[in-house]
């Protein structure tokens, strides 16, 4: 083909050009070439979806569940979601108007931001955070304003820190706890302060609670929209990927007030139409009968969490003991490497893949993210290799 234009990159949308490419691509490319790599770099469960959920999807297919569904999602699924939140957190959502079933939380996040933001609106984003918060904000025409969370506060965010970054243009506060990549959680007290801050500045909160079922120890997850007066101003995002090991099914949902959910549904119906019916059938089964399988997986993550925390601490990497999700975020500055170099050298020398903290925001520099969603044997072997690396490569 004869190339008629050499300026293709300039001809792309400025919004797309403003989004930085993913920081983990390079590691993926190197690791994919290696035979014996142990990966602590995976952001999804190592479990396969529980059989009863898979089996109910197969039955659904046999019964002919192959059509579109209502834009908002199957009524039975929306009922189950609402019931789940009423039972667990005392929320008062209406299945008919306050729920939208989406293609993963990724879609829900995208359309929530698109439904809410006007050009130039600012979104407060505590960092380190999941890689798409910034990107989706920019793609929706908004301006991400990062608020660094501090290790000495266990990566929780405070209203004082948010206060430093709030302006006239701030419209949304986007939080994700339990947190990817740090494993941090926010206690009820912490969140009540954030709620007061949101009321003071009349902000909308988008709360990504995809890891909400994965908390460990005494602190139970607190749903942001279950705090007094917060249901109306919160867009709550959740899904089935992490708790039910259903990442590939691509099924999530948003809960919020009637107006916001209607606006999001408008975008959803023109861009996605509906979430896949097969995944919706499976999600109903997950909510009706999946809890015991989920609890078993959580107990297993908890054991691995203690093993990896103990192992990393003993080899001299200081880290905060994660309270949720399935990540640990050790401080690697003692090695003398930047987080990017550490990850690359470790992968080359010892064939252990992990993700540099800087991929999750500038304040993640000096850390690496290790996922413990992998078997105990592999975690043990990875710990040995990391220890070996530290002995031989300390700068």
């Amino acid at each position: 083909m004869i190339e008629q234009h050499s300026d293709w990159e300039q001809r792309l949308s400025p919004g797309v050009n403003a989004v930085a490419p993913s920081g983990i691509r390079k590691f993926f490319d190197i690791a994919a070439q290696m035979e014996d790599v142990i990966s602590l770099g995976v952001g999804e469960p190592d479990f396969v979806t529980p059989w009863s959920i898979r089996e109910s999807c197969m039955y659904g297919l046999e019964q002919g569940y192959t059509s579109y569904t209502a834009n908002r999602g199957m009524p039975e699924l929306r009922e189950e979601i609402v019931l789940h939140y009423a039972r667990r957190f005392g929320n008062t959502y209406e299945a008919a108007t306050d729920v939208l079933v989406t293609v993963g939380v990724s879609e829900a996040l995208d359309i929530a931001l698109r439904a809410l933001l006007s050009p130039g609106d600012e979104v407060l984003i505590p960092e380190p955070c999941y890689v798409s918060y910034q990107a989706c904000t920019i793609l929706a025409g908004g301006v991400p304003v990062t608020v660094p969370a501090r290790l000495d506060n266990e990566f929780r965010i405070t209203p004082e820190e948010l206060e430093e970054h709030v302006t006239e243009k701030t419209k949304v506060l986007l939080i994700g706890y339990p947190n990817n990549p740090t494993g941090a959680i926010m206690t009820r007290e912490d969140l009540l302060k954030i709620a007061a801050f949101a009321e003071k500045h009349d902000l909308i909160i988008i709360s990504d609670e995809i890891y909400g079922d994965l908390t460990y120890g005494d602190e139970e997850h607190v749903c942001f929209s279950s705090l007094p007066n917060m249901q109306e101003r919160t867009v709550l995002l959740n899904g089935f990927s992490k708790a039910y090991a259903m990442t590939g099914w691509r099924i999530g949902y948003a809960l919020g007030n009637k107006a916001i959910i209607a606006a999001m549904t408008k975008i959803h119906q023109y861009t996605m139409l509906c979430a896949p019916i097969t995944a919706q059938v499976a999600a109903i089964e997950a909510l009706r009968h999946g809890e015991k399988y989920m609890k078993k997986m959580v107990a297993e993550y908890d054991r691995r969490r203690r093993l990896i925390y103990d192992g990393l601490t003993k080899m001299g990497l200081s880290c905060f003991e994660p309270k949720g999700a399935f990540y640990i975020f050790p401080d690697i500055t003692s090695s003398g490497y930047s987080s990017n170099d550490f990850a690359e050298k470790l992968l080359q020398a010892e064939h252990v893949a992990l993700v540099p903290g800087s991929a999750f925001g500038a304040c993640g520099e000096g850390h690496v993210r290790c996922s413990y969603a992998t078997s105990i044997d592999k975690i043990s072997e990875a710990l040995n290799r990391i220890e070996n690396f530290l002995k031989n490569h300390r700068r």
Partner: protein
Amino acid sequence: MRELLELLEHDARRPVSELASMLQRSEYEVEKEIRELEKNKIILSYNTLINWEKFGDDTVTAIIEVNLLPQREVGFDSIAERIYRFDEVRTVYLMSGSFDLLVIIEGKSLNDVANFVATRLATIEGVTGTRSHFMLKPYKKDGVIINDEERDRRLVVSP
């Protein structure tokens, strides 16, 4: 204590150092607790699940339904004991329903097992009938799928 048992039930070969890390206890405490559990016969034994067929051995497994005549005072217990003391008998359960004992026997050949049932089991006083079923193919044993072909299909690195 329950968590330690669950870990050992799943894999009895876990090093104590790992168990201690996972339970957030000292190795000494974990060792002590294991010894205690063994002493109290809560932990009965440590077995290994082996795919003997894959190793090349052809053993024969039979599941036998046994009907009994219960005895005064001891019910089924003393006949059950006369049966479970045989080395050939791997498992014995008292059952509700149309038979009384479920007995699992392993032998080297069909003949071997048939012989045992005919000459030793069926002739015990109080045994009123037996029905033998020979196992053809195991799919899952003690929670373990024999030929599990599910594997990790995840990308090596993802956000």
